């Protein structure tokens, strides 16, 4: 079943076409990769899917409903959560607060209930705390829960970003270069973790990545972007042997 479909999506910044005729579909439960050289428009594509930018043309449908015109927080509430290429944690807050904040859209108690500490407040807060700790355990961060986020090592900050995105209970998780800056061993662990959370949470995942071993290792299908357009799509095996992709990555002479 199709979860996300973007059709003919384009984004112009003045005269620059950052993304043009972007056509992508993702089925429920799939793990899809989006790769391409630097500046190909991968992050712009993510920003279009999450409402940070509005597409100049085209349509984006998620779970059968259009996402065009919605604000980023509304899109998150519909079930798309993301991480950022340049980490955007709530850096002055504790690790657990970072995760708790992302529960926000599932909280039912109102402002007055929290101020006067009535009704659902205590139960829901306890539940949020419990769920946050469970998530941190998965990412091996539970022993650092009271640490200030900016003091974590780089790899741990990346993991915390994923934990925080999961706390929003998404159907579709968008990961923007989750392995950036990680060493090969950390990347291996991350691969295992992404596979595992997909099974555990029944997630659909779309990830941008430069690390080819990671992309080829876990993605079921791959889209390749260059100059804002999709130049190839298919299984990792097909992508590896696609002349267009080889040209884009290694330069035109390589095949001529």
């Amino acid at each position, binding site marked *: 079943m199709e979860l996300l479909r973007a059709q003919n999506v384009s984004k112009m910044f003045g005269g620059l076409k950052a993304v043009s005729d972007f056509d992508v579909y993702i089925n429920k439960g799939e793990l899809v990769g989006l790769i391409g050289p630097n500046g190909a428009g991968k992050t712009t594509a993510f920003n279009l899917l999450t409402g940070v930018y509005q597409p100049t043309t085209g349509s984006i449908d998620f779970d059968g409903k259009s996402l065009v015109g919605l604000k980023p*927080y509304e899109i998150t509430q519909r079930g798309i959560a993301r991480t950022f290429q340049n980490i955007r944690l*709530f850096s002055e807050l504790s690790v657990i607060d970072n995760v708790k904040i992302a529960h926000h859209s599932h909280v039912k108690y109102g402002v007055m209930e929290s101020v006067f500490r009535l009704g659902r407040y205590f139960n829901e807060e306890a539940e949020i705390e419990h769920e946050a700790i469970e998530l941190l355990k998965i990412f091996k961060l539970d022993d650092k829960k009271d640490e200030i986020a900016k003091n974590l090592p780089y790899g741990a900050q990346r993991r915390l970003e994923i934990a925080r995105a999961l706390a*929003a209970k998404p159907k579709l998780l968008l990961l923007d270069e989750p392995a950036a800056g990680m060493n090969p061993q950390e990347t291996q662990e991350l691969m295992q973790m992404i596979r595992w959370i997909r099974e555990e949470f029944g997630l659909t995942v779309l990830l941008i990545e430069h690390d080819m071993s990671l992309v080829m290792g876990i993605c079921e299908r791959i889209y390749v972007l260059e100059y804002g357009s999709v130049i190839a799509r298919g299984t990792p095996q097909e992508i590896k042997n696609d002349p267009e992709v080889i040209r884009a990555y290694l330069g035109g002479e390589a095949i001529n």
Partner: protein
Amino acid sequence: MNRLRMQDMKILVASLVLFGILMALLGGGVLGAFWEFNLILLGINIIMSVSLNLINGYTGQFSLGHAGFMAIGAYMSAVLTTNFQVPFLGALIAGGLAAMLLGLLIGLPTLRLRGDYLAIATLGLGEIIRITIMNIQYVGGAAGFMGIPHKTTFTWVFFVMLFVLFFVKNFINSSHGRACIAVRENEIAAEAMGINTTKYKVMAFAIGAGFAGVAGGLFAHCFYIINPTSFTFMASFNYLIMVVLGGLGSITGSIAGAVVLTGVSAALADLPEFRMIIFSLVLILLMFYRPQGLFGYMEAADMKWIKRLKGGRK
């Protein structure tokens, strides 16, 4: 009883003990009228700085017009008690609601601005409110509004202050408060986590403005007259100093800031010309040695030396 409720009860009991001691001292004549007046002023300043901290410290929206909202509350409640014989509590609430409503109306357009631009817009807003009041003859214009009944007592100020402190503390420790803090920390990430950033900015602004209005009501009923010159930019600036001095994003910090500034003001009451010089020096030194404010983001109870005092739990 769970941990949070226990904690609340402890704070409440400690506050009541403090109130009892102060009342005994005031009643016994140990502390005279000068002290009583300054304690009332301190309570009002604490309400102002804590409510401003909700906007500036917790939500990270730099507002410079807080005295404007105080003026709205002061005039609204004074008119109600003086001309319409409304009970004091009702007038305070009405003053708070009026300021809150204005905060809501003004917050919606201005909170789209960021940083410096928001500061300038709110600064202008505070002045607009003051000058508008100055030109309304019904409330006495520039000469001030006279004949206000003297209703504000230390008891009133103390319990309103306690309510405000609990309100802000509990708000901050809920998902809604965390949403405000997330806006301060990183607006883009907050939005990506499903937080309606505009809603929470406006909410914090309106709540802060509402409490400033209540503080204004208390302020108006301490004297027999209120005057637009009490609510100038310098007054807003004073509250800002308290917040920055204590630490943006710390309730205990705001209380400390208000205590220090009110204390210094009272101590230098005889030398008004030196007061601003000393304030400025204090601020310069603070920015050099403790730019995050006395308490930073922390509450007193989270500080290491306090924890050690309590016997090193945790």
